[in-house]
């Protein structure tokens, strides 16, 4: 087993990893910027090293400083958390070159899943379902012919475009004939390239993702799915496991498919395969995240598997603690609310001193926090303060627990999105499980109306 782990991160995930280390009898070394000198992860760690000033580029993203900190502290491994350097293959490589175990996937895993086009090629070769689409279209007739196979609505995209530019949603053949020449001229004007292609358009997709944990030695387990459809500006706000939209049959099929794919690709450590789910129970692979994710606790609660502990075991060469032949049993339902320091209406970040803090407690409530009363939330980093996780025998039990836990949560001195989460808990669509990535937009629209 590893002896001393440096956590190259801050906030609640650094605290999460420190806890796992403690429980395994491993010393935990925190790193921090000057503004984080009093942060909770610094206070809970066995040792702490200041690695630079407030800007991330000079501290939490400063590779030489982090490696030097590991050297002076005598750490034998580094856990990158999420964000920052967690998906940086070069960093993982440097760690290994410096004799430090990188607690995460291999640099090869990170590279092959890290870029969109190669990742989709790999996914196809592993038999994962992708959003149906075409190659470059010859003309409007070709477009109409191929759109029939895909099924309307489709989305017409410029090959050279990106980030939403030059995209048109099309709902019928006549409309496609009409917009095709127009899109082509726009593409030539905008990107000096008139190539267009089609993809199936999902009106109100759900964001579904599957948690993988694998030892890189042929033991790969998929711990079911999470639903993360409630997002604001493409940032997840609330996650749950399992998803009400997945049938037991589809779940079983996907777990089998993904476990085979992960074994085949030789993946190591924790990872997440993200999918869109359409209204007809079709799942389409979007991307793979080669790191632990913010929302991992909901999977831990229903599966009983401690993902950080497994990551550390794998990195220590001890393999998974889940026997190969034991089926994963998923129990009950778990929900996570991300509590951010932000205005609940405008989402404007709201750093400042936390004058009062009293977290929720009691049965079925888990608090993964990176804060304490009296601490000043710095403005230099993201606004996540804590994650409130509830676990009940059923989804409605988990919701009721979350509602009461949110009501108990006291964070004074700054604004948080607790009121927004409470509103979601009491929303009829949410309670009935009618979710899509448009949920939050709708919620705000209905209030404005």
């Amino acid at each position, binding site marked *: 087993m590893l002896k001393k782990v440096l956590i190259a991160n801050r906030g609640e995930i650094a605290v999460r990893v420190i806890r796992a280390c403690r429980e395994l009898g491993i010393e935990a070394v*925190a790193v921090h910027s*000057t503004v984080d000198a009093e942060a909770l992860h610094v*206070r*809970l760690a*066995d040792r702490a090293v200041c690695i630079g*000033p407030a800007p991330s580029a000079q501290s939490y993203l400063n590779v*030489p400083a982090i490696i030097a900190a590991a050297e002076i502290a005598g750490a034998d491994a580094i856990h990158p958390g999420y964000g920052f350097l967690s998906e940086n293959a070069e960093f993982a490589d440097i760690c290994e070159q*410096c004799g430090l175990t990188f607690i995460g996937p291999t640099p090869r895993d990170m590279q092959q899943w890290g870029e969109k086009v190669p990742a989709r090629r790999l996914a196809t070769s592993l038999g994962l379902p992708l959003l149906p689409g075409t190659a470059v279209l010859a003309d409007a007739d070709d477009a109409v012919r191929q759109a029939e196979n895909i099924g309307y609505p489709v989305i017409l995209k410029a090959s050279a475009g990106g980030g939403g530019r030059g995209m048109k949603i099309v709902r019928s053949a006549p409309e496609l004939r009409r917009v095709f020449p127009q899109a082509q001229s726009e593409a030539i004007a905008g990107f000096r390239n008139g190539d267009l292609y089609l993809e199936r358009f999902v009106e109100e997709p759900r964001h579904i993702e599957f948690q993988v944990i694998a030892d890189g030695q042929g033991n790969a387990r998929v711990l079911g799915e999470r639903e993360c459809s409630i997002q604001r500006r493409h940032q997840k706000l609330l996650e749950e496991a399992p998803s009400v939209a997945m049938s037991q049959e589809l779940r079983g099929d996907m777990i089998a498919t993904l476990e085979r794919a992960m074994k085949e690709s030789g993946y190591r450590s924790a990872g997440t395969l993200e999918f869109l789910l359409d209204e007809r129970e079709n799942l389409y692979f979007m991307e793979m995240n080669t790191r632990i994710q913010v929302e991992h606790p909901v999977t831990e609660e229903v599966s009983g598997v401690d993902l950080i502990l497994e990551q550390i075991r794998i990195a220590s060469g001890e393999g998974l603690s889940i026997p190969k032949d034991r089926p994963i049993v998923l129990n009950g339902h778990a929900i996570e609310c991300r509590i951010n320091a932000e205005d609940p209406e405008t989402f404007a970040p709201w750093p400042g001193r936390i004058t009062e803090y009293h977290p929720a407690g009691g049965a079925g409530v888990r608090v993964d926090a990176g804060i304490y009363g*009296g601490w000043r939330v710095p403005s230099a980093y993201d606004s996540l303060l804590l994650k409130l996780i509830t676990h009940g025998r059923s989804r409605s039990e988990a919701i009721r627990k979350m509602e009461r836990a949110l009501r108990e949560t006291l964070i004074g001195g700054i604004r948080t999105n607790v009121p927004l989460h409470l509103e979601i808990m009491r929303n009829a669509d949410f309670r009935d499980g009618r979710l899509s990535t448009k949920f939050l937009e709708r919620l705000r629209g209905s209030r404005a109306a």
Partner: protein
Amino acid sequence: MDIDIKQLRELMKAMKQLGVTELELEGPEQRIMLRRGSDEASFATPTMMQQGSPSMPPGSFPPPPIEHAHAAAPAIPADDENVVFVTSPFVGTFYRSPSPDSAAFTDVGQAISPGSVLCIVEAMKLMNEIESEIAGTVIEVMVENGKPVEFGDKLFKVKKS
């Protein structure tokens, strides 16, 4: 100026009882400002780094540097405005001389000027020569040779000239 201790004490008591953290009183002849510290949570602070650099056996010294990473060392003011602290711009191991056999780059009583090499901070096998930003005289060397330093740690106390 008259100071009515009893009165002030009464004020402080009232502040404590009633949770007031700051009080300012300003008159033609007097200005009073009172601020009470917040009772913040005081978790045990992690133990400070004290062990030697683990990348080499204790007592040994690194080979002469192959690459020199020049870095200016930020200076921060001390209580006396003519005295400043030169702090470490890197995390790493502090060395006072380029090799075990050579003399120290600088020592107490020695004059330094902008650009003078003061020490080396070794990180990732790179020997980073730390240059002075200021001119003055070294009053104190604040870290022992071969000890680890963090970002911002005070290395030298310097009297500005």
